[in-house]
């Protein structure tokens, strides 16, 4: 019955509406992919520098300038653009309507890219706004990014407002929340009046975690909630659990930022509060993960036949494991060992890569072929999946072990240089894992090409059951 209703309302959409939506989705994905290639090429160069510090010499290639270029290009070039492109598709399709404004989407695309290019150039020239994690771009450039966010939020809101259903599908809760909250995060980061000395430290703690958890997390979860039912052709296990996770994530996440500064001179109560809510985060994380895994239950066999599903599955497991690890790291006893070591770098890759990036890939592979009618080859999907998975495994495990060794060296009172020497083998494995990940991204770029510019009907026949995914039961 629901399907019939949606098929009926889909007839209100013209073919040109579909084409516009497809070209917006494709364009965001293509520019995002270019940023992924750039950011991870820089990442691989950085990884090599740990073993060969004189490799890539001179001011423009020095580690301290490329490091923020890598993180910012990953965050604001790759992940943000890819998530927004997918979010447009999800919002329009799950609302049974067309995009509110293609023009705004193009303006947003231009602004996001201008900000990322300008930010990259500025950092390489040494214009760094204080080495403050994830907000290193000079503030006028961050204003451009904020403008892109506002444009995107407006466009998505207006699209969902046009919906042909009573209900607002869960994905859109997360997507709209993500863009709107992130506008606030960006403003809090830019205004200077409460950011002096220790005050800025507390804002940094707030910002660096909220920029991740109120932006990438909700958008990636929004994609899960749409793509997973779509691929499996069955509704999400529990809509109510998804709503519950939405509100708990919203209330708990903003409080945990200070756990980045445990044992710092920040007020002890602020640190303790952050630890308490880091534990509370297990509620939305396990609730959300359980919801996805229970949706897949009984359909694990389909995993073997669907790479989009495999990507989503890894993304869900990455969300579960990465976030749970984050809670553990927040305990003082474990921070004592792991804080300031490479363990943290492993954690940030487990979450930004194992969770967010795999979620994006799952969403893109599941949805972009539906939008464009063009599919990548199974070989391309397989190569990408296994290189990315194995590469990130090697990367995360090497840095987790190495970081532990580093932390124990310090605790045992070894001369500092001992911890540098002991890291060398793990740095090599980081380079190996990173290189494999990068090769996977080249294959991904090829797959994106196939999905956007390839011949139509390349892939397997598409099974689309519109309606089931959007409405649930």
């Amino acid at each position, binding site marked *: 019955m629901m399907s019939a209703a949606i098929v009926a309302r889909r007839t209100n959409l013209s073919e040109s509406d579909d084409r516009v939506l497809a070209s917006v989705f494709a364009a965001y994905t293509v520019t995002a992919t270019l940023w992924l290639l750039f950011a991870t090429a820089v990442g691989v160069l950085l990884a090599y520098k740990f073993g060969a510090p004189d490799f890539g010499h001179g001011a423009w290639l020095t*580690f301290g300038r490329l490091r923020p270029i890598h993180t910012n290009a990953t965050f604001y070039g790759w992940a943000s653009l890819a998530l927004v492109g997918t979010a447009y598709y999800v919002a329009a399709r799950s609302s049974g309507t067309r995009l509110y404004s293609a023009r705004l989407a193009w303006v947003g695309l231009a602004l996001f890219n201008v900000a990322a290019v300008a930010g990259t150039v500025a950092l390489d020239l040494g214009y760094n706004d204080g080495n403050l994690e994830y907000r290193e771009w000079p503030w006028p450039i961050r204003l451009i990014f904020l403008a892109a966010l506002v444009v995107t939020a407006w466009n998505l809101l207006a699209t969902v407002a046009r919906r042909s259903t009573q209900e607002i599908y869960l994905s859109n809760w997360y997507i709209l929340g993500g863009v709107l909250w992130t506008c606030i995060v960006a403003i809090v980061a830019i205004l200077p009046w409460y950011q002096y000395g220790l005050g800025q430290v507390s804002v940094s703690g707030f910002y660096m975690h909220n920029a991740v958890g109120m932006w990438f997390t909700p958008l990636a979860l929004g994609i899960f909630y749409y793509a997973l039912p779509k691929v499996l052709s069955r509704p999400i296990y529990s809509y109510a659990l998804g709503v519950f996770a939405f509100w708990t994530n919203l209330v708990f996440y903003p409080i945990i930022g200070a756990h*980045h500064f445990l044992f710092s*001179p920040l007020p002890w109560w602020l640190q303790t509060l952050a630890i308490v809510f880091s534990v509370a985060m297990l509620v939305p994380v396990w609730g959300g993960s359980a919801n996805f895994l229970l949706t897949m239950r009984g359909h694990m066999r389909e995993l073997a036949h669907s790479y989009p599903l495999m990507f989503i599955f890894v993304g869900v497991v990455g969300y579960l494991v990465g976030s749970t690890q984050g809670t553990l790291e927040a305990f003082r006893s474990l921070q*004592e060992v792991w804080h300031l070591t490479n363990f943290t770098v492993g954690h940030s890759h487990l979450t930004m890569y194992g969770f967010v990036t795999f979620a994006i890939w799952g969403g893109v592979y599941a949805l972009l072929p539906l939008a464009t009618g063009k599919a990548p080859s199974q070989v391309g999907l397989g190569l990408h999946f296994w290189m990315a998975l194995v590469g990130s495994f090697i990367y995360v495990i090497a840095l987790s072990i190495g970081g532990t060794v580093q932390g124990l060296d310090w605790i045992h009172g070894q001369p500092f240089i001992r911890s540098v020497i002991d890291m060398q083998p793990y740095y090599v494995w980081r380079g190996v894992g990173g290189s494999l990940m990068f090769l996977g991204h080249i294959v991904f770029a090829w797959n994106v090409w196939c999905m956007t510019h390839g011949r139509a009907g390349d892939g397997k026949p598409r099974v689309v059951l519109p309606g089931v995914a959007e409405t649930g039961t």
Partner: protein
Amino acid sequence: MSKPPVNKLVLIAGGSTLVYAVLALLMGILPGIELSRTPPGAGVEPLTALQAEGRDVYVANGCSYCHTQQVRPLDQDKVFGRPSAPGDFAYATPELLGSERTGPDLTNIGARQPSAVWQFIHLYNPRAVVPESIMPAFDWLFDVVATAPAGATLVPLPDKFAPSPGVVVPTHQAEALVAYLASLKQTPLPASGHDGQTAKPGIAATATAATVDSPPDTDANDAVKGKALFAANCSACHQASGEGLPGAFPPLKGNAAVNAADPATHIRALLYGVQGVNVGGVVYPGSMPPFGAMLSDADIVAIINYERSSWGNHGTPVTAAAVAAERAKGK
């Protein structure tokens, strides 16, 4: 088709955004306002113009991606200084606490490594003084000139790292950066036993983390401990070979004070530091920092005896009593 109700959208998007705005105010802005008012600790001063310029160089080149500026109240951090206090950061905007220690903490580097010459050599190529270092070379902060202009600081590089022909002089940026590093000095906390003048040997012993796990006192263990302490505190200048760096840091190998029967000069050098020392007829203009406040008598004994028995040196071993005696005499 009927228009969908707007209120649901207002509830979800507007309601959650309102909740988030309140939380951002409570967890982001209000603590920021409150903590921005933290008064400076006793003796904490704003940077001079040159030091501030140096901080800009530090930030532009992303030093804080590998170096923290926060000493935690944990044993393993004591090697970097006393625990950081809120008042230390009154003038530290942007905050450079950092999140990773690929390299050592720099909170107190101005006291731990006061030698500008060492900083210049190390910046030009870290491997010239610390062979295992993986820090990038910042040689583009230096000029290579045929002869040093009058008044310019000459960077005395070991042959292996020196350009040929020409000599190396720091640019203004390098001068500013080193001025900033020199400014990174912790001020003593009012009611703390950590500052050099009041530290008693017993307290100093618990206050140092450069101490290696103390196994039973045997000669073999002392040698191991001495070697580790030397690596942590001394080899950056005097080198693992004990040969120092020609023109910059004096050798300990064959050094008269190290081989002298009377260990007073040797002990006092570690306790109180040295300025402009003459070794083997060569005058070294730099200064060596005092270690008396950082290291216990036992640690100093271990280092001295390691130095006196290595690299072909044959100095008589010293005892903790001798170190305590020099400590009691004062500077």
